[in-house]
């Protein structure tokens, strides 16, 4: 099964689970540019809860946030992270609406966006949208990593109950979207706001998220070093307690992520570890990231670190 299919089916399941849920997006009535509303459209009982939005991201975000305030559970699907950047003004307002009203106004709004390379687009595909989003106060930013968990991420991210109605962006890396999965897990098996160790190891710890999670797993196998891999998963707010505990466990840290190193979330993690795990650090905190430069379509793969580079970094810290 393709991950896109699993997501489309999960979207329909979400609408069936809760009648308050609605799906919004450009071309959503036609199944959406990613096809995420295709199953909903095919189901006559769900079709009326799929809403097409105009080509104005700020309007779309404002519309969805209004629906959320009005009692609905909107899921706004973007075709590209550029939509979130264009709609940043609306996004920022939606994110701080709860704070602005003294937390009395819950905003159970979920936004879903693809990110990173994979579609041969270049340009924005080399950026790391999550680093920009993570700096919006009040916003929760999640990022799906392993393909088998993609649908489970969507399900978990949509659980915006009244006591946890935080405006949320779920980032779906395009490489993850294009992957196939033998078994789409229905449930994440952990809180989506937690970081999780997905591979045990003693010699080093690799922190990754999104499409780089698989790169990290492959790199550990390639390096033949007993390194742990942690899927950071929730990028804002960071699960500092788990992350620091994992960093302390080996003291030899590699942070791998897509997009530029400069101003990236890898720097945020490194600062967190320097701050809260300093006495456990046993090697330089080493970041492996995408290129610090705009990339053409032909070079967009350079936005994600390679297995060889991550393996090199693992060996460097493990043998430091």
């Amino acid at each position: 099964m393709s991950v896109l299919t699993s997501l489309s089916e999960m979207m329909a399941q979400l609408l069936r689970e809760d009648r308050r849920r609605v799906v919004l997006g450009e071309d959503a009535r036609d199944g959406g540019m990613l096809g995420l509303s295709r199953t909903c459209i095919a189901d006559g009982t769900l079709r009326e809860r799929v809403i097409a939005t105009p080509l104005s991201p700020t309007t779309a975000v404002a519309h969805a946030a209004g629906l959320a305030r009005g009692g609905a559970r909107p899921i706004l699907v973007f075709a590209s992270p550029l939509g979130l950047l264009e709609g940043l003004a609306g996004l920022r307002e939606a994110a701080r609406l709860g704070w602005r009203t003294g937390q009395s106004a819950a905003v159970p709004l979920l936004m879903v966006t693809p990110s990173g390379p994979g579609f041969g687009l270049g340009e924005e595909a080399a950026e790391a949208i999550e680093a920009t989003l993570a700096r919006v106060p009040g916003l929760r930013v999640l990022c799906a990593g392993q393909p088998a968990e993609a649908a489970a991420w969507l399900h978990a991210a949509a659980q915006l109950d009244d006591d946890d109605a935080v405006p949320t962006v779920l980032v779906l890396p395009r490489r993850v979207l294009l992957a196939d999965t033998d078994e789409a897990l229905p449930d994440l098996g952990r809180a989506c706001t937690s970081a999780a160790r997905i591979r045990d190891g003693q010699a080093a710890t690799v922190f990754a998220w999104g499409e780089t999670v698989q790169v990290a797993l492959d790199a550990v196998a390639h390096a033949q070093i007993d390194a742990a891999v942690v899927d950071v998963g929730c990028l804002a707010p960071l699960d500092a307690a788990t992350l620091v505990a994992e960093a302390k466990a080996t003291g030899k840290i590699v942070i791998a992520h897509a997009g530029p190193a400069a101003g990236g979330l890898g720097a945020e993690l490194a600062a967190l570890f320097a701050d809260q795990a300093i006495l456990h650090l046993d090697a330089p905190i080493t970041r492996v990231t995408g290129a610090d430069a705009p990339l053409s379509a032909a070079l967009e793969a350079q936005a994600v670190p390679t297995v060889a580079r991550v393996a090199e970094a693992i060996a460097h810290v493990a043998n430091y």
Partner: protein
Amino acid sequence: MPEFKLPAIGEGVVEGEIVRWLKQPGDAVSANEAIVEVMTDKATVEIPSPRDAIVQEIVAAEGTIAAVGEVIALFGDSAVVPASKPTPAAPPPAPAPISPAAAPVAAAPTNGAGKVLATPAARAHAREHGIDLAAVSGDRGRVTKADVLRAQATPTPTPTPTPTPTPTSAPAVAQAPAPAPTPVVRRDLGAPAADETIPFRGMRRIIADGLKKSYSTAVHYTYVEQVDVSKLVEVRKQAKNAAAEQGVALSYLPFIVKAVVLALKRYPIVNAELDEANAQVIVRKRYNIGIATATDNGLMVPVLHDADRLSLLDVAREIDRLSNAARAMKASRDELTGSTFTITSLGAIGGVLATPILNYPEVGILGVHAIRKTPVVDDNDNIVIGHLMNLSVSLDHRVVDGFEGASFLQEVRRYLEDPTLLLLAGI
């Protein structure tokens, strides 16, 4: 793999001691950047890298003597640290096994100012378990937690405590109620400190080698004379102020240098060396006076070249400059070689007499002692206060017989007792 050989450092230099590596394996070094400190004779020189490279391996450890042209390090080809270079065919090695067999031998790497280079985790673990990081070897240029754990697993032998002396009981002799001897009680000051080990290398070894050669080769004898420098004290007292106006702190040493040079001119055999290989005595026609100087790193002998051509004040300036350079380890090789005669003076702690060891292959060395006020019988048999100073001259009897040696020192004495003669000689 490119080899880094000890380059020719200077004319006549055939070997040098590796004093300190400024780069460790894995470090990148750029062309003309200092990579190692090498000591020759008594000058320490920094050897630059001939090109951009990564230090792969250090072949000549610190403290070893390497010949010019000998490979002292290996350079890597790439800009990748070897330990972290993954090869797709052969994956990088697993972390070095923690084996107690790999007993730490090398000292912990430091930042050059004595602070051990250790990771925070290594520091925290060492602090928690009371381990001295300086005693932990870090063979990759740093101490990691694994190094501390390894050191912890290999306990260092604890010094056996000295047995506390127990008071000996009185012998059981019934008929002799002798009083029991008072037991000797040592105050309890804790366990005695362990012996300190100072590496015998670098300057210390070079000094030792030189002295050993001198003492075992030359046939030393020492001749001592008392010199009444009362007039010189007066002259110097007056000249001191005039010299100060020119920014020179005028000591007695420049006067002594001048007197020695004049005496050497009269007795040239003292300004000579024995060239045994060619069965000849070489009488030097330059008057290069070595000035033995105590430095933090040991005895150094900067050389006052052509002292006969320098004015008294310039001699003072040069002595000042050279001794400062020597103390700062900044003296060049030229400034530390080429002496033909040496003066050793300890100033205020100069004592009464000494047996100076020749600065081989020179045949004469003059020891200068403290000037002390002493009752002196003058020409009219009156007891007056004189300023007396002793001079000890050591000579190589193979070249300089007692008569010449004594005559030389009497000539020095003549100049120092009557500074007018110095004046007339045109200092």
